[in-house]
């Protein structure tokens, strides 16, 4: 009886949740990232419309995020004493450009990417954040994080905020941070699945499952299979001789996530526990004795590696190219920068979602402008949403 009460209580909660925001209709706020609102629409649109420009408040936040320190009295006074809003905006934008040219900006970007990548603070683990920070400082392309084929392990000099390109030296192919030895070592695990999860969450901004079909399939489990890949595209003891049953349906539907995961993991499974590339798969399995994984554990014969269903990737360079071409990856990059600027916690860990409408302007500019990171950061820090309170 007590359990039944719990069922009703939680089900009631689940049903009540959609009503929690009192959202009676479509938003009427602008889709330019300004969020200026028109004063019409629901209570949230009205709240957005009531915000006012405050360039001094924005300057303080921007200074703390972009330089790691407070604005000077001169910087505060020049904006505070400006005669009108247009002048304040002009002075503010110029100061953002100034902040982003300082060595301290490079240090802040390194810190941002360490947090984003969840690794760093030692020479061994800092090279991936350093590459991303270098791109952020030098206005490099975000896509280089997946495609750069040289100088992928730069060192950073905090004294002057400069980067010195260097090769990673861990052997094998070279594709941005996807082949970074620090990443491979930090996220080493059974089957290399932790590396796949890192790629998915950092660059696609969602947990698995990553691919969801509109037409779920009954596979004899407690719930339907919702993946887009054929159910038999991954291995199990009865499907290609895999030693782990990725087609298990007795608890959860493993294939919902593993159809995607198993098509990516073999691409990065040749990196060993130290992040060095080997000529054979060098990650263990969770079987007795931890034997090394084999390709047949992931995929049945005839299946090939891929970034997504319909987007094959024969090797890591192919994986990087596919990610660079994926609009969802670019959108994720913009969303992460947006959340950083606006002080949000991690977009995946704490579900700080950014609706597409909110960053549509920045995403379009990012995609059409060559995925330039510094341009993106400037655009975010000078957006109406950043300077309105």
């Amino acid at each position: 009886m007590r359990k039944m009460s719990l069922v009703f209580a939680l089900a009631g909660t689940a049903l009540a949740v959609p009503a929690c925001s009192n959202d009676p209709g479509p938003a009427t706020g602008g889709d330019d990232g300004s969020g200026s609102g028109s004063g019409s629409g629901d209570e949230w649109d009205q709240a957005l419309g009531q915000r006012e420009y405050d360039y001094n408040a924005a300057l303080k936040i921007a200074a703390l995020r972009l330089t790691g320190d407070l604005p000077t009295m001169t910087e505060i006074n020049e904006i505070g004493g400006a005669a009108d809003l247009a002048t304040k905006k002009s002075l503010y934008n110029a100061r953002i450009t100034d902040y982003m040219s300082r060595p301290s900006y490079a240090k802040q970007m390194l810190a941002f990417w360490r947090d984003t990548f969840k690794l760093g603070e030692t020479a061994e683990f800092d090279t991936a954040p350093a590459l991303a920070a270098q791109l952020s400082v030098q206005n490099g392309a975000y896509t280089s994080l997946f495609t750069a084929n040289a100088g992928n392990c730069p060192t950073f000099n905090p004294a002057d905020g400069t980067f010195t390109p260097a090769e990673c030296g861990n052997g094998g192919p070279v594709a941005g941070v996807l082949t970074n030895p620090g990443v491979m070592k930090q996220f080493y695990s059974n089957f290399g699945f932790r590396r796949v999860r890192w790629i998915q969450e950092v660059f696609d901004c969602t947990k698995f499952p990553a691919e969801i079909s509109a037409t779920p399939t009954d596979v004899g489990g407690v719930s339907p299979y919702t993946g887009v890949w054929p159910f038999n595209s991954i291995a199990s003891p009865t499907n290609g001789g895999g030693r782990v049953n990725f087609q298990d349906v007795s608890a959860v539907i493993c294939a919902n996530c593993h159809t995607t995961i198993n098509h990516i993991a073999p691409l990065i499974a040749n990196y060993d526990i130290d992040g060095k590339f080997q000529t054979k798969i060098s990650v263990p399995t969770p079987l007795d004795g931890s034997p090394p994984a084999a390709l047949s554990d992931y995929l049945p014969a005839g299946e090939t590696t891929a970034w997504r269903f319909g987007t094959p990737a024969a090797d890591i360079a192919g994986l990087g190219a596919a990610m660079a071409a994926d609009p969802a990856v670019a959108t994720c990059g913009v969303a992460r920068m947006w959340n950083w600027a606006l002080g949000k916690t991690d977009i995946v860990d704490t579900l700080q979602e950014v609706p597409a409408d909110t960053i549509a302007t920045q995403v379009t500019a990012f995609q059409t402008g060559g995925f330039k990171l510094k341009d993106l950061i400037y655009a975010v820090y000078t957006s109406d949403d950043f300077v309105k309170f």
Partner: protein
Amino acid sequence: MKNFLILGLLGVGLGACTEDLSKPADDTTPPAGATSGDQTTTFDHDNSGISPWDLIDRLEKEGPPKYTSHVHSCPKVRVATLGNVLTSLGVNIGNATALSAGDLYRSGGNALGAANFANRIRENIGVSTSGASREFDIFAAAADEIIANVGTLERCKDAGGNPATLFDTSDACLPTGITCLLGVPASVAHLDFCNLTIQNASDHATGKRIAVAAMLAAAYTCE
């Protein structure tokens, strides 16, 4: 099985709530703990995430993403940034004296939510009880140092080279000093709060310490 269904129901509800509420949920992530292993099922792998109760609480308090994504949140000041702020306010963060501001800062990494990259944990930028408490302790300990040093801070000199001043000879608060502390122009409300704090304290020296610490706490609870 029953528990799984309960969590599933809850998960569907959450998915609907975090997105545009007029759209159906498309999140089929298994509920936290559903991929834990046991004697009869598959291998253990963690899929834990944000607590659904925390998420519901956040949505109720802050509003839906279509609103919150447009506005600033209240992240704590990063640990490294807090060190820079203290330094730029004249605090010696290398001070080894027990319970000095520098000592509290340097030993406060865990309380302040510093990153633990060895365990794949980024810096926590959420405001936590422990983090805010430690930060306020640091500001309280730093007040005397700040009061003594504001006049010497290059950062707080205006374009004409005039230093900031926190208090006049009658211990009334001055805008330049408050602006230096806060990083934004001092408002009348700031000055009123500062003056009232001093006047209502047991003595002016104590009042000045409390005023400086309290304004810093208010200004830097959020970055």
